[in-house]
């Protein structure tokens, strides 16, 4: 077996040294009645060539986004990732290292986490960010829990245009934690009255912008109303690239920002792994969940970095921890950091503008397809169209013609009754030809 270095002779020698009569004797504590005597009913070891064939066969039964005109978003976005990013994250010293518990030989990880934290804080306009969460949806759930801790209240108010998966994630944890969640109904064209729903019991208001339908939301008045009621504003985003062009939540009064960082540096990966971004104000830092890298000095006075404030964490605090989270999304955070370093302000701004330009062009093209209505007044790189009849059927028909034309809102929220809406995204990876093909094919299938 290519991955197992011990030879039968090695094993025999080692066994002799342990004093055990047999390898099985080392498993003596497993009750004999339960011990497996046969091998598991699974195939035997395979060579690399065979494994590659088997997995390539499965892979070939999917339609890769890059092989077709592609407009699917709704929380995960296809962007071009520079080849250097993927190369660097595969460096052995990054890929095969552990959580940097021994900082003297993990400065590489710790320094990039410190860079990541700074980038996320800067991007979101916040004071401080953690070293990443699992993804945007779990970051949002953690934001709600944090708001409960900060305000000592236990009711969250969720905007109706929060991504339905995010809403469900928050609701699930809250239900089992015994916390209350109020969710407003969706308002596809935007303009929902969130402020009117805030009351003194709310620990937080959770608002997404761009929202799930693509609308840009003015967070300032919501923040003011929330603060007046003693609640926090939790601002959510699913498309990090948007922050290159739109006003960041930190500049609009958000107290906690939770977002999905996948679109910078990370592939679609059929939904994971992604990287949750989480930022807040300095004064809340000790209530913040997740890992944190901090600056310090070594015994010779040289700057260095360590994991810090771990007294918040489960391995010290156990049942009193701020969160049960133990793993972050380190390697995805590294991909984010490297891609963001390559972009810089200049590149990110340009990239965001190119995305927005493409989406505007697409909206113009789709708006003139008979029967199609674009719902949005404002958007970044994703917007919502209303089609005659079932959105699901339209999307399926488009797929049959080789166009992946967006996400039916009904897939995210089957019980919403909003069955004619399609969320449509266009990034820099869609070409003008792609957009023209989409409009023409949509016209055909309607």
């Amino acid at each position, binding site marked *: 077996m290519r991955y197992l270095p011990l030879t039968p002779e090695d094993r025999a020698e080692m066994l002799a040294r342990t004093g055990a009569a047999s390898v099985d004797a080392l498993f003596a504590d497993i009750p004999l009645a339960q011990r497996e005597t046969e091998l598991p009913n699974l195939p035997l070891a395979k060579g690399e060539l065979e494994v590659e064939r088997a997995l390539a066969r499965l892979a070939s039964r999917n339609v890769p986004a890059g092989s077709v005109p592609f407009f699917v978003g709704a929380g995960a976005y296809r962007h071009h990732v520079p080849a250097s990013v993927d190369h660097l994250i595969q460096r052995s010293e990054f890929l095969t290292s552990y959580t940097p518990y021994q900082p003297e030989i993990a400065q590489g990880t710790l320094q990039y986490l410190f860079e990541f934290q700074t980038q996320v804080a800067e991007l979101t306009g916040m004071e401080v960010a953690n070293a990443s969460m699992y993804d945007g949806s779990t970051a949002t759930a953690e934001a709600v829990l944090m708001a409960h801790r900060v305000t000592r209240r236990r009711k969250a108010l969720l905007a109706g245009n929060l991504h339905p998966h995010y809403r469900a994630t928050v609701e699930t944890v809250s239900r089992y934690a015994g916390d209350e969640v109020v969710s407003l109904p969706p308002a596809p064209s935007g303009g929902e009255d969130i402020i009117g729903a805030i009351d003194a019991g709310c620990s937080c208001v959770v608002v997404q912008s761009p929202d799930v339908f693509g609308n840009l939301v003015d967070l300032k008045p919501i923040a003011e109303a929330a603060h007046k009621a003693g609640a926090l504003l939790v601002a959510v985003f699913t498309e990090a690239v948007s922050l290159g062009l739109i006003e960041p939540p930190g500049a609009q009064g958000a107290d906690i920002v939770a977002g999905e960082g996948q679109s910078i540096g990370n592939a679609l990966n059929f939904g994971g792994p992604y990287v949750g971004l989480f930022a807040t104000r300095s004064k809340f830092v000790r209530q913040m969940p997740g890992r944190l890298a901090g600056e310090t000095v070594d015994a010779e006075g040289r700057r260095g970095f360590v994991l810090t404030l771990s007294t918040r964490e489960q*391995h010290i605090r156990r049942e009193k921890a701020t969160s049960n989270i133990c793993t972050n999304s380190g390697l995805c955070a590294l991909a984010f950091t490297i891609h963001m370093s390559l972009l810089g302000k200049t590149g990110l701004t340009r990239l965001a503008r190119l995305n927005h330009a493409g989406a505007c062009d697409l909206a113009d093209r789709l708006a003139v397809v008979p029967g199609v209505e674009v719902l949005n007044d404002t958007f970044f790189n994703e917007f919502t169209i209303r089609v005659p009849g079932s959105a699901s059927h339209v999307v399926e028909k488009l797929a049959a013609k080789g166009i992946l034309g967006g996400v039916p809102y009904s897939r995210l929220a089957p019980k919403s009754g909003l069955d004619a809406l399609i969320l449509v995204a266009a990034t820099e990876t869609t070409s003008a030809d792609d957009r023209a093909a989409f409009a023409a094919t949509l016209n055909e299938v309607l």
Partner: protein
Amino acid sequence: LEEGLLFEIGRTEVTGVDVPEPAPFKDRLGGHARTAPLELPGLSEPEAMRHYVRLSRMNYGIDSGLFPLGSCTMKHNPRLNEKMARLPGFADVHPLQPLSTVQGALGLMGELSRYLLELTGMQAVALQPKAGAHGELCGMMAIKAAHEASGSKRHVVLVPESAHGTNPATAALIGYEVRSIPARADGTVDPEAVKAALGPEVAALMLTNPNTCGLFERDVVAIAEAVHAAGAYFYSDGANFNAILGKVRIADLGVDAMHINLHKTFSTPHGGGGPGAGPVVLSAALAPFAPVPALVATADGLALVEDQGADGAQQALGRMSAFHGQMGMFVRALSWMLSHGADGMRQASEDAVLSANYIRACLMDVMSAPFAERPAMHEALFDDAWLAGTGISTLDVAKALIDEGYHPMTVYFPLVVHGAMLIEPTESESKASLDLFIAALRDLALAAKAGDKARFLGAPYYAPRRRLDETRAARAPVLRWVKPEPIPDAAE
């Protein structure tokens, strides 16, 4: 050469990405355009490459040397798995594409599930959880859901004192009161202690098995029976599943739920702290409460039930996160499983256990190993009794090991052992490698006993950094770079 921070070497006007300017167009931002400053420095590609290559060289990974971090299972990460996860058919597929265009991805999830169920003997598996602790949360929510479905209001969870910190944290997170169970003298849980703690208020027992002392809980069957007899569920922490893969099906031990760290047992890379993946296997009693999405077979092929309460997920506990789980990790884990096969997986467990016992046997005369009357599972546990009177601590030994070219073992965990050193070699080390490591530790042990304090207290001497001041970091946290006082061109 020291490597500066990105913010010190980068400049906002530099970019390492050539993005074309779009033709002029009318924006649809409706006045939401960014006005806040955006101090994100850029690097040209050569600068970025060098910066991150240099950072990487300050790190230690499995490929650098033996990485005996107990409980963390730092085994070889095959590059085949990286290559497979990057096939466009897996990496470049969106979670919300029409199901007809992702049959291979669903097939992969199905195949992974089949392997996990066969290896555990369990009834159902939820793939969504994104890490071990997330899997624990899922499993414990399933238990809570099951109790609620039967109208029970149990509010206590029992956790042995040797448990991972995530166990009590998870139970507390969903409102359970945590009660600790002490270990008996041999490092395992006494079924009598469990029985004594059980009662009508107890919802579940959470037990790590093999436990954090590196021992298999030999009374696990009795414990499970007691738990079930009391109307509670048995949650097993699967962090150490690697020790028993192919040696016992956990269903046969009476487990109701267990998470599986794909990044431990199935070798998806740890990546400096993530991403992980923590699928949860469930017994028949808990299977109906598995979260959405659920994978189902239909006449048209594989499909996903994505909505709680829909057909196929009527009792689903809800949703753990957006989308379907850590697909990239599923590919890597399945690639590992296919490569090893039934025979290789069992052999891997045996080699991991053998290696741990070998290390313990070779070091027992110079270090002190508690609970050594029982076979170690895939970890060798030592305490600091052997350091008594030397003025050298477990931490010092760890730092001195860095100077020998090794990553230290896990220290001060489990908490139940004083000055614990938990060594997990995994199955990936050759005998020659183990022998070198053992020799290094013996040498340190003899030096410690000989009173060579300087070698320990000042260690590490030969690392990118000497010992770092963690207290200072925590007292006045500096968690991000801040532009220094405005001296023109200072950022250059």
